[in-house]
């Protein structure tokens, strides 16, 4: 049973709010299809003939393809690693809990509370001394560690919803932890794994602090690319917008698919 339909002013207000919040993104999208002259026209162009030249210009820029590739590789690899480490940990905590399991879980989440800037200096120096500055490896490791607590937590809460009897029956039949995880848990929890992975990819794609501070021209992600773009090329608005649209689009699509799950993941289940 649903609450009754909204009043007309209520619905109108909701649409106005939606439009205002979305407007900056829409305006960026429109600017991306303008010419450079059109982008800074005064009064601003609302109706115009869309052109693709800015996208072509952004893509032909030497750095762009490399940085996009970095974003894809780093977010995917760090996510796969995080899931590989979190999966057995979450299995262990959900199905073989000990007295300390809950403390362990809370402690893992608490590592998220460390402000990155508090450890900027040592991480930078460690990366420098190990030759990992400006490498994908450094960002893969950092992103994996940043997301690991969230992924463990999400997998744990999905596993907790799976009836224990199923695994216990398998255990009776002589299936060890490895076979239980691969043949039972993996298929049973695949929606949960997918949404944990989605969240990790989004967070890692949008991660800017470490990407800007640990990389230069080789391993930077799109976040670092756009941030550096701002200095000399800031005035080419159409090109900047086109590059931004390309950088934002995949995550906008991913994010809108997973919005509900994100709440659970981001708030550690404190809001359901």
């Amino acid at each position, binding site marked *: 049973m*649903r*609450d009754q339909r909204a009043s007309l002013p*209520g619905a109108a*207000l909701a*649409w106005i*709010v*939606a439009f205002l*919040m*979305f407007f*900056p*993104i829409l*305006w960026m999208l429109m600017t991306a299809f303008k010419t450079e002259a059109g982008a800074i026209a*005064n*009064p601003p162009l609302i109706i115009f003939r869309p052109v693709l030249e800015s996208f072509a210009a952004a893509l032909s820029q030497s750095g762009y393809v490399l940085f996009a590739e970095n974003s894809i590789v780093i977010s995917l690899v760090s996510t796969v690693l995080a899931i590989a*480490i979190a999966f*057995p*940990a979450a*299995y*262990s905590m959900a199905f*073989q809990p000990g007295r300390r399991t809950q403390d*362990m879980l809370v402690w*893992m*989440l608490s*590592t998220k*509370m*460390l*402000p990155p*800037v*508090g*450890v*900027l*200096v*040592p*991480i*930078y120096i*460690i990366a420098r001394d190990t030759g990992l500055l400006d490498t994908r490896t450094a960002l893969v490791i950092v992103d994996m560690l940043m997301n*690991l607590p969230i992924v*463990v937590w999400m997998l744990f809460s999905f596993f907790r919803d799976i009836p*224990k009897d199923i695994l216990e029956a398998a255990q009776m039949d002589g299936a060890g*932890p490895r076979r239980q995880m691969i043949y039972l848990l993996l298929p049973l929890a695949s929606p949960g794994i997918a949404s944990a992975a989605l969240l990790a990819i989004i967070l890692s794609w949008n991660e*800017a*602090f470490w990407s*800007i501070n640990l990389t230069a021209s080789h391993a930077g992600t*799109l*976040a670092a690319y756009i*941030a550096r773009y*701002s200095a000399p090329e*800031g005035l080419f*608005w159409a090109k*900047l917008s086109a590059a931004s649209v390309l*950088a934002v689009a995949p*995550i*906008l699509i991913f994010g*809108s698919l997973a*919005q509900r799950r*994100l709440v659970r993941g*981001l*708030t550690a*289940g*404190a809001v359901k």
Partner: protein
Amino acid sequence: MSASVSIANRAVAPADLLSRSRRRVAWTLLSPAVIVLALWAFVPLIMTLLYSFQRYNLLYPERRGFVGFRNYGYLLSESSFWTAIINTIVMVVAVLVATIVLGVLFSLLLNQNFKGRAVARLMVIAPFFVLPPVAALIWKNLLFDPLYGLIGWLLKLVGLPAVAWFTHFPMIALIIIVAWEWTPFATLILLTALQSLDPEQLEAARMDGAKSVNRVIYIVLPHLARPIAITIMMESIFLLSIFAEILTTTAGGPGDATTTLTYLIYIRALLDFNIGSASAAGVLAIILANIVAFFLMRAVARNLEA
């Protein structure tokens, strides 16, 4: 049920043996995650702490040595440090107020039943998924620019002069950008919480003739109290670390008008290479975050028990 099983196990000796080996397996599976997180949580922390007691500048590595609390002493006596603390508090508090107020409002609007609300919801939530530097640049150039920006043009339409936002109101401009990014987060969480509100309770109140304003004040807001508290705590942790938005718009300026603690540490560490001072400020940032985290983790732990 599982509790009774484990009690039964404990009574018999062979089963006890079995459970001990099970526990070893459980720990083996858990250990990779625990070990990497422990390394990540403690090693850099201890290094920051050690550096904070040293004179250490990457430009003059030979002049390195133990200086006790001198870095902290210098830091606390510098006006730029206190400016950064005040800027941080102003930014975090202003963004929190804006996002919570707008978040409550937007979530109530979006929780209504109207045609196409799934689309409207997505439009409101979308800014959360925009890369931080992109968000900053859209606002800085396309909207706030005094010559070609849309807002300047709108102001001119109504006869007002264009405003050079980042020259005259840098902090306000920054707050607007960050609030735009984080309002969707508050809205999303509060909307989720609203959907767990029992519709029959609201219906009953409506039948009893409660006005909609009263329904919001007496039923909806109390229901949202806990989600709001959690949103505030989560956001504070993230807002404390706002960085890319400052770097791409103001670079902490003009002067140090938008230099927050995070940005100050970045300047000290990677522009001045003053490792000692940056680490001391880092330790203070960690303490600040821990105060917030303490309350947040208590809320999460309470939820795990429930």
